[in-house]
């Protein structure tokens, strides 16, 4: 029989059993719709995350951090380490530079200062080189590294200050504005032990110029939340945090806050503090003497210290080797606590989790399609059982087994084609609705490392894939009953009641 005639007869029968056919097709539509929608959502997230990783996650970057905040680190990192890496790992390292972390308050008006804001001291120029897509101004111009007064603000901190200081929602207003920062240096508790003083915090106020506000990144690089940071040069930020020299001149630069054990609090200037410290004596030693001792210890290596070392690999393939060599180096220099973090490993971990997540989704989609195909199988089996006599008739009038097989199978395939096609359209629609209503357009935070915004994406590939998988599945599940039908002996089939 000609294919056209096979299809014509299949169509005639399907029209005869409209309801059953329609329900079976509906099953396929739902299965394929689910599959298509799932694939498009998965695709959307995949693309969003890949983009985010490519944009923000320079996988050639390796961080080395000590433990604890700057100045109180158990495991110290030095500029000599940076030099060592630059010289001894030149074969695999493109560039390396230090960074320093801290926290400051920002002046809002004459009496009000914000709570602590994150400060990062590093190289603007190298930051731009390593994160060309991340270190991008929303407004303003990234300053050069010789600009000691210039800072760059992360999007969120800029927005925060814009709201507080300028009562606007536009973070860009901060550009070219002067900010007054208060750097706080708490003295160690040992410095006031045995006195009526509970604690002393030294303040240094510095004035900076906002040169640029960054675009929102949503990225947190090894604890460095870019959007919430005030970024200056390494040298400048280190100067802000340098404890004052124990001289009149040194203390003239600072002021202090003294908290007494009684609960009283005094705000004093540097000269007053110095006088007070010289006046208080414990065990024949003034607090001033203690400060001098502490200062000398602290300053022994202050100029050499860094909070973080950024290492930029020549090629992403060298990352593992660099990681290993860095670990070996810090181990040999007695600092096995130093943390070596390769963004590539982060990226891998995230990709791994995402891969599992996506495979799971795809499995769900395939299950939906298989369930729909089971519907086809069920319908076709019922069909065959009801039409045994017809099989006998067809064979008696000269149909071969092959023709009978084609007649039944083509019904399953027709249902598969119609259902899969409409299912893809419905899935496309569902994806569109999800995107339009923002149903899934949420911010997904991945272990606070970075965040992405995703929405379903429908591609021709997904459409073809869903259609094909569903069609193949219905064809397979429809083939078995069709084959049973074709195997009936004509005499037996005609006698069937």
């Amino acid at each position, binding site marked *: *029989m*000609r294919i056209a*005639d096979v299809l014509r*007869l299949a169509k*005639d*029968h399907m029209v*005869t059993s409209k309801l059953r056919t329609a329900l079976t097709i509906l099953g396929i539509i739902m299965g394929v719709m689910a599959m298509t929608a799932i694939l498009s959502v998965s695709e959307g997230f995949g693309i969003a995350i890949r983009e985010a990783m490519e944009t923000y996650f320079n996988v050639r970057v390796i961080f080395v951090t000590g433990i604890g905040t700057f100045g109180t680190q158990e495991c110290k990192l030095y500029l000599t380490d940076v030099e060592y890496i630059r010289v001894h790992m030149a074969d695999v390292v493109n560039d390396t530079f230090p960074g320093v972390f801290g926290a400051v308050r920002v002046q809002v008006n004459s009496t009000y200062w914000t709570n602590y804001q994150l400060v990062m001291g590093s190289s603007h120029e190298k930051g731009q080189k390593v994160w060309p897509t991340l270190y991008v101004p929303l407004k303003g111009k990234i300053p050069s590294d010789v600009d000691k007064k210039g800072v760059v603000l992360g999007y969120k901190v800029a927005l925060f200050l814009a709201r507080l200081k300028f009562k606007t929602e536009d973070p860009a207003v901060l550009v070219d504005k002067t900010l007054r920062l208060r750097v706080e240096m708490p003295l160690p508790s040992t410095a006031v032990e045995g006195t009526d003083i509970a604690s002393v915090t030294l303040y240094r106020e510095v004035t900076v110029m906002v040169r640029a506000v960054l675009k929102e990144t949503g990225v947190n690089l090894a604890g460095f939340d870019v959007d919430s940071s005030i970024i200056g040069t390494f040298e400048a930020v280190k100067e802000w945090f340098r404890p004052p020299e124990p001289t009149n001149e040194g203390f003239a630069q600072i002021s202090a806050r003294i908290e007494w054990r009684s609960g009283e609090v005094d705000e004093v200037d540097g000269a007053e503090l110095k006088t007070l410290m010289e006046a208080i004596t414990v065990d024949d030693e003034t607090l001033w003497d203690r400060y001098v001792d502490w200062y000398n210890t602290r300053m022994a290596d202050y100029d050499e210290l860094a909070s973080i070392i950024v290492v930029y690999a020549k090629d992403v393939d060298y990352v593992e080797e660099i990681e290993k060599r860095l670990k070996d180096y810090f181990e040999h220099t007695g600092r096995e606590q130093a943390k070596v973090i390769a963004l590539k490993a982060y990226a891998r971990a995230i990709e791994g989790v995402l891969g599992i997540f996506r495979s799971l989704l795809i499995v769900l989609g395939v299950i939906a399609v298989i369930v729909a195909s089971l519907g086809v199988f069920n319908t076709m089996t019922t069909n065959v059982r009801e039409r045994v*006599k*017809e099989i*006998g*008739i*067809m*064979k*008696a*009038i*000269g*149909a*071969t*087994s*092959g*023709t009978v097989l084609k007649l039944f199978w083509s019904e399953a395939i027709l249902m598969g084609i119609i259902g899969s096609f409409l299912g893809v359209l419905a899935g496309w629609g569902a994806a569109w609705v999800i995107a339009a209503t923002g149903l899934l357009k949420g911010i997904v935070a991945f272990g606070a490392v970075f965040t992405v915004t995703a929405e379903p994406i429908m591609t021709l590939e997904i459409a073809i894939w869903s259609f094909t998988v569903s069609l193949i599945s219905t064809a397979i599940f429809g083939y078995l009953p069709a084959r049973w039908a074709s195997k009936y*002996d*004509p*005499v037996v089939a*005609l006698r069937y009641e």
Partner: protein
Amino acid sequence: MKGKGEGGKARGEEGFPLVKLVDVHKVYKLGEVEVHALRGVNLEVERGEFVAIVGPSGSGKSTLLNMIGAMDRPTKGQVFIEGQDITKMSDKERAKLRLEKIGFVFQQYHLIPWLPAIKSVEIPLMIAGVPPKERRKRAEALLHEVGLGDRMWHKPSELSGGEQQRVAIARALANEPEILLADEPTGNLDTKTGAEIVKLIRRLNEEKGVTCIIVTHDLEVAAAARRVLYLRDGRIVRGQPLAAKVGKEKALRPEEEGEGA
């Protein structure tokens, strides 16, 4: 074969009888029990004959018809259609033979319930690969011929028994078969309608030269045949005095067992 050329009946150009059965046995096995439906049937039917097969229920009439119509294979023996041993053919070849040379008519009409008359008649033409326009024309002509020119788009459920049987006959004739095999075609019909169907089959035999083999219980129907085979216990046996019972001398020529062999 001894019977060849005997009786001056029409033979194929090749000189073979149209239908020839040689010692055909059919045994159905139902578990332990063996049912001998046919026990050595020898038979020749020439082109253009009109043969009636009668016999008690269970005597093997339908089984015999299925052997001739290439629907089933004998347990033993040979079946020749135009000199070709169809027992040696593949299923596919047998399907082709049924399509081209044989038309079946059944007691229960066996129409496909969801197809209108015209499409039912078109199906054998579809299977044969006749293009749509041509087959529609032929199906229409056939339905006119069996007197259903005004019922072409009726489904079986919208037709009377006699009309359904006419559709079945039209369908059986679609590919211009050599042989029309009818298994109790009037069994489900009242006498008058049955007589009309028999008349139609007779006419086909006389006007178109279609060889007809009809299984029947109805002696009136048998009386219409020129030749009557009496089947009992799977054998063609000596003829019964049908004429006496029916009261018609005409055309009754019951055969003896193994006649012509």
